[in-house]
């Protein structure tokens, strides 16, 4: 049986385990810095040290999620032996037969490897958080543009609804929306049916307003969008994809919808504010005088000019969504019990927190570093986009 590892050895072995991530990071940075003058705002990011640090942390987790299968030392769900909560660096009971000989960061109360669970958790978080944020942005933009541009009754109604959601304490909303009982009533599916339709609407209007003067091209683009969009829609919202490619487990759909629902009103308010500012500019007036349609002005003239603050907020919001997902996991809402996502691992580890902290501290630090990376990245982007 191998010896227990010292902390230096643990870190060295972990660094070795992460080798695909280091390679990918180096390649990304070398290429990006080499061509940074040709890469627009993304390239400018490499002029700001804060932005670079943030980008490095974020990409570290992105690559970890991508290469998770190569990094993990054990199956994240496998229970290794009967010793509860083995300490970091302690040897595994079955070290002989070609298995990895140590618990790098210890094991949890079911003797599952904490390191492997943390790595696998990155995959879970980095799939749901950006996807949910993107949906929230599409919903917020689709509703925020007309509210800010047209104003009037539409704005009053939409703003009132956004304020309704914002006045709801988030935790209460989660406790009401993310429960097994509510899945039986079908409310998440109805919500998903509405929320997921909006992105399709967004892209159809986007392409139609641009190409409606050229019907063949318009028909092609809008047709492709509709086919792809409705295909994904049938799978994601109703789990009835005829080909079985798109699909989401009911509990995941529940979590996803709630997170989009909580985030979209804030995005709506931001977009509305920016549009109200931009619509008084001369180029908008010029477009109106040329007789351009309202949606063309909104989507192809106002939106591109609002991208700076929106990109910054997008980064921040992915971080916030990560925190929200962690909160859900922390309260054990909407996740399967053995799920390795960071929130529920913290929740599982907190029961013995004061005696055996490592099963909770490891995912806690992972979550914190990812959110920190996203915040630093947003800060760097803000600084660089202000320089224009």
């Amino acid at each position, binding site marked *: 049986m191998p010896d227990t590892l010292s902390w230096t050895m643990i870190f060295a072995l972990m660094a070795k385990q992460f080798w695909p991530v280091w390679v990918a990071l180096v390649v990304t940075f070398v290429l990006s810095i080499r061509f940074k003058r040709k890469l627009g705002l993304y390239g400018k990011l490499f002029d700001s040290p*804060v932005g670079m640090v943030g980008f490095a942390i974020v990409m570290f987790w992105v690559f970890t999620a991508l290469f998770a299968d190569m990094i993990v030392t054990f199956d994240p769900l496998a229970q290794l032996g009967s010793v509860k909560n083995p300490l970091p660096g302690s040897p595994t009971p079955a070290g002989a037969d070609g298995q990895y000989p140590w618990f790098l960061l210890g094991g949890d109360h079911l003797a599952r490897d904490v390191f492997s669970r943390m790595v696998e958790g990155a995959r879970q978080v980095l799939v749901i958080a950006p996807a949910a944020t993107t949906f929230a942005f599409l919903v917020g933009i689709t509703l925020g543009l007309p509210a800010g541009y047209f104003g009037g009754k539409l704005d009053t109604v939409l703003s*009132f609804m956004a*304020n*309704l959601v914002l*006045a*709801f*304490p*988030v*935790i*209460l909303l989660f*406790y*009401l*929306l993310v429960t097994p*009982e*509510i899945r*039986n*009533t079908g*409310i998440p599916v109805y919500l998903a049916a509405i929320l997921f339709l909006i992105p399709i609407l967004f892209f159809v209007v986007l392409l139609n307003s641009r190409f409606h003067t050229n019907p063949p091209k318009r028909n092609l683009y809008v047709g492709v969008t509709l086919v792809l969009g409705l295909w994904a829609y049938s799978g994601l919202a109703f789990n009835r994809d005829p080909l079985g490619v798109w699909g989401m487990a009911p509990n995941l759909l529940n979590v996803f919808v709630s997170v989009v629902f909580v985030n979209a009103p804030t995005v709506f308010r931001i977009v509305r504010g920016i549009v109200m500012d931009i619509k008084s500019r001369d180029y908008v007036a010029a477009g109106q005088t040329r007789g351009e349609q309202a949606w063309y002005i909104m989507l192809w003239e106002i939106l591109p000019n609002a991208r700076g603050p929106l990109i910054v907020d997008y980064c921040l919001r992915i*971080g916030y969504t990560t*925190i929200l997902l*962690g*909160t859900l996991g*922390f*309260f054990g809402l909407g996740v399967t019990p053995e799920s390795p996502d960071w*929130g529920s691992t*913290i*929740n599982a*580890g*907190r029961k013995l*927190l*004061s*005696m*055996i*902290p490592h099963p*909770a*501290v490891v995912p*806690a*630090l992972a*979550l*914190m570093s990812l*959110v*920190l990376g*996203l*915040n*630093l990245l947003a*800060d760097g982007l803000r600084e660089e986009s202000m320089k224009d």
Partner: protein
Amino acid sequence: MLRFVLRRLGVMVLTALVLTFVVFYLTNLPPNLEKLARSEGSVRMTDAAVASWIIDNGHGGSVFYRYAEWLGVAPGWVLTDDKGVTRGLCIRQNDDPALAPTFCGIFQGNWGFSTVFKKPVLYSLGKSMAATGWLMLAVMVVMVPVALLIGVLAGMREGSRTDRVLSTFSIASSATPEYVSGVILVALFASPATGLSPLLSGWGWIGGKTLFLGTATSAMDNITFWNFALPVATIALYGVGYIARMTRASMTEVMTQQYIRTARLKGVAFRDVVLRHALRNAMIAPFTVIMLQFPYLLNGVVITETLFNYKGFGWMLVTAAGNNDIEMLLGASVVAVIFVLATQLISDIGYVFLNPRIRLS
């Protein structure tokens, strides 16, 4: 001004009604009522028995009518069963049905009875809110001065080393949600196995096994520094970063204004420029931010109270939600919703008062 406040109040009341209705609807969904029937009646009830229990206990009928009953604007239900016993929402046990009031909702002060705590909702609510009040007070006392100080120090000389260090700190703190900082703080300061405590007790500097207590249950009766510091720090840490960043942004903007330059050129000392000329104008935005931070504090309170087992409002909300305690949950949501709306109103009105440039249309 009066019209502005009145209109805001009107919108606020409407919002509160809609939100409480949503909560009412979601807590009174058929599956929840079935669960209630099985926990209050018997676990082995048949589906038919469950259905009749729901109707017999006034949970049948339209959800709108039941909401009105619960509010106290519609007459409470009264049912006489086969044995001739009349029961109803407003009729207490062993009371004469003829003397019972017609309306009894939350407007009449009847918030219902908690099935988990076996106490009237108002009583449990009051007790837990008092506990949370102390927690929030301590958090505010720690968080606001620290955040303003960090923001002002960072913002008064933009780009300096102090600014860099403090800004990084505030970014890091706003990246640390309560369930992360709580876990780390406990591991560092309240664990007999790791962090500082084994060192300190090895040197004989502390009497007990740990420096701070890992739970705040004892703070319910007696708040001391050692059992209250960690929960307060946990909540404050997340909020500090955000308020500090807003203060910094507002401070840097003020420091570039013409009148600050004029004051500097007149030869006023930098200290006096900051304290006399800049500070007051830089405090307008943070006031709004601090008020709007309250709803997020509520979030933090729920997480922290669960983590540290402090039986306040958040802990109660989680317990009620986890145990299908419908009336308790409704009571808690009313409080939460009114709390959030009130802070929004105060922040709006306060902003207008503080900033004479804003004109009310």
